[in-house]
């Protein structure tokens, strides 16, 4: 079969991408720059900047002299390749064989695909229209060989589609750079007065090889189609999705259960073989009446256990309304992570630790009903202020280098907000003699000395607290404090906690 290739060139790939994300940049000149050998070198410039003579490779300082209000953004290394791979995956709709042509192009093997869009003209127009619609400046060309398509996409002036066998003729008027040569070879050709391919393509091969090396000959052969060229095609990741169409609409909970179990089994088999586990799963049920119902679950750590995942879904089956019946189930896992391999334990230790799978499964189950944010552990924080001495952690594996402060005792129960109390005390620095809380009088029999806690000055300006551990005549122990100094106008007594 006659091979046909399409080359797509993104002239301003990175700047276009940034302008799509930040629409306010559409009408202003800007560049992407990175620091290189102590200079800030421009890596990419948008169309407006390039029109004023700013080309990649110059320094940002020079460019700013030309355009004083030029905007300079950071250049992200590797972004272009990632972007091209993503656009390439999107292009899978046009042909299954797509290769990334770093740094600024895509190559498509379109043999046998174009008739679906009414011929090559319609095909190319469709791709370019869609990409332009997204905001990219693109040029494309179709030819028999990769080399010719690449050259026409970048340097072609007359037509974008080269009919089969016409590549030699089309290449003749193009400059030597169109042959994908390195800059050194192009410079040497220019130096010798070769400004078009036409001027040197007729020269004997041995003479060309002697002067310009094997690369030039190879590139010429590739462009003309006498040498084969191989590309590395993109293999898009198959989404983790399963479908289950039903012959008869499903209306019962048992039916839904069987469907979920079936879907989970196939999905988990695939996950298991790839060593992955899912973190999020979304079930969608397409009803006969055209409505879409569903349920979603999330796990705390990657899992591919059918039983566990089914249990999570089982909690939500009641919320799925089948109405007249469900005719199609789909199960999708949008978030997938590498599975942690549990080591087989020869002697099961007594009690399961934080990393045990049973605990993770239990917490998943609870989290899917009451919400993951309501399940917390507490880690120490370096702070004396009681309310800030700990911080919540939603993850089971998180640890900190901080240590719990083992000093003065802390109350077992702490009020969320300190409550006001009426206090009588003998001397300013003495613990209170009695206090009234919620209408009950507590006569203090014993007390610990005051513990003064100052808030962190860089956080708040609130006054310090003098905490007292006091015990009343019945042996009940309270944590009370006075905020501020004794003789301050706004000093107040509060109760903050209850001791064991």
């Amino acid at each position: 079969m006659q091979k046909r290739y399409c080359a797509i060139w993104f002239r301003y790939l990175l700047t276009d991408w940034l302008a799509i994300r930040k629409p306010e940049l559409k009408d202003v000149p800007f560049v992407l720059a990175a620091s290189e050998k102590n200079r800030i070198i421009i890596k990419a410039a948008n169309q407006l900047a390039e029109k004023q003579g700013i080309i990649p490779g110059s320094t940002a300082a020079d460019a700013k002299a030309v355009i004083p209000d030029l905007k300079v953004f950071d250049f992200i290394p590797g972004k272009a390749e990632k972007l091209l791979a993503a656009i390439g995956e999107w292009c899978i709709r046009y042909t299954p064989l797509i290769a990334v042509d770093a740094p600024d192009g895509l190559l498509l093997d379109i043999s046998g695909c174009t008739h679906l869009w009414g011929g090559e003209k319609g095909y190319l127009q469709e791709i370019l229209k869609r990409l332009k619609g997204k905001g990219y400046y693109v040029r494309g060309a179709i030819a028999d060989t990769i080399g010719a398509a690449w050259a026409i996409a970048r340097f072609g002036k007359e037509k974008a589609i080269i009919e089969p066998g016409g590549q030699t003729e089309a290449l003749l008027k193009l400059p030597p750079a169109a042959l994908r040569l390195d800059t050194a070879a192009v410079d040497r050709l220019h130096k010798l007065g070769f400004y078009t391919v036409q001027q040197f393509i007729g020269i004997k091969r041995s003479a060309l090889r002697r002067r310009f090396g094997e690369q030039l000959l190879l590139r010429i052969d590739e462009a003309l189609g006498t040498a084969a060229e191989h590309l590395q095609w993109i293999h898009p990741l198959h989404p983790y999705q399963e479908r289950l169409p039903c012959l008869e609409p499903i209306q019962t909970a048992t039916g839904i259960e069987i469907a979920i179990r079936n879907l989970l089994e196939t999905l988990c088999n695939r996950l298991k073989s790839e060593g992955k586990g899912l973190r999020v799963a979304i079930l969608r049920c397409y009803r006969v009446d055209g409505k879409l119902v569903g349920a979603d679950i999330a796990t705390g750590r990657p899992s591919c256990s059918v039983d566990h995942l089914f249990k999570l879904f089982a909690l939500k089956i009641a919320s799925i309304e089948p109405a007249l019946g469900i005719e199609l189930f789909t199960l999708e896992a949008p978030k997938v992570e590498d599975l942690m391999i549990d080591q087989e334990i020869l002697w099961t230790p007594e009690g399961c630790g934080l990393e045990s799978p049973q605990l993770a499964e239990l917490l998943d189950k609870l989290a899917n009903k009451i919400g993951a944010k309501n399940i917390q552990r507490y880690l120490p924080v370096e702070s004396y202020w009681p309310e800030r001495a700990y911080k919540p952690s939603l993850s089971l594996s998180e640890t900190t280098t901080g240590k719990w402060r083992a000093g003065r005792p802390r109350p077992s129960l702490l009020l969320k907000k300190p409550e006001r109390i009426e206090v009588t005390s003998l001397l300013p620095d003495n613990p209170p003699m009695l206090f009234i809380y919620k209408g009950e009088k507590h006569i203090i029999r014993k007390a610990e000395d005051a513990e003064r806690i100052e808030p962190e000055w860089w956080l708040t300006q609130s006054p310090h607290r003098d905490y007292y551990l006091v015990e009343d005549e019945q042996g009940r122990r309270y944590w009370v404090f006075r905020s501020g100094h004794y003789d301050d106008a706004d000093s107040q007594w509060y109760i903050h906690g209850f001791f064991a």
Partner: protein
Amino acid sequence: MQASKASIIQQLQQKILSWQGFASPAAAETKRMGLGPLEDAFPNGVFPTGAIHEMLCPTREQGAATAGLLSGIVTALMKNGGVCLWISADRRLYPPALLSFNILPEQVIFIDVAREKDVLWAMEEALKCEGLAAVVAEVREVSFAQSRRLQLAVEDSKVTGFLLRTDLKKLTTTTCVARWQITHLPGALPDGLPGVGFPRWQVELLRVRNGNPGSWIFEWNNKGFVPVEEPLAETEQHLTRQVG
């Protein structure tokens, strides 16, 4: 003669227990909680793990005392690196305080549910998870049927559960293995020393399945429980206070 009689009685008691479906734990499984004389109140003299305990704490002060005693018990249960779950709808427990009962606060997972109803659901699910050291739930009240569900969950997994009940208006029978009530007692210090001393509690076992209810005094001295021999005068004082 006396000794033989006692042994006969003990054998008979054992038989009755086994007929009642109460499996006596194997020698290796016995765990001392450090509660000394209190543990003898339980059948076979062993603190029942893998069961539900019920603790009454109607006031906040009693809640704090209960949290203290409970932390001391849970420490012993968590000795092997286990995890404790604390489920509640309105939690006031201050995590750093667990440290003084030798529990690492990060080994405790706090589950805050919005509705009272979900506390029991979460507890039942947690009790089904084998290997947890302990599950603590703060509830207002629990019905007989609900307690039976918890008991069934516990029988397979052998997890120990603690119910902290705050509403004592409907104090009905439950399947819980024991009903506790803990109240503060004034701490004792050698004469002339300042401060408040170690926390001291009056621990009452109001109901014990197959055991003997009673009342004891304990102190916590940062290492473990210390049983306190009750001076007679104090008992009377305590009684009069209860009556009054």
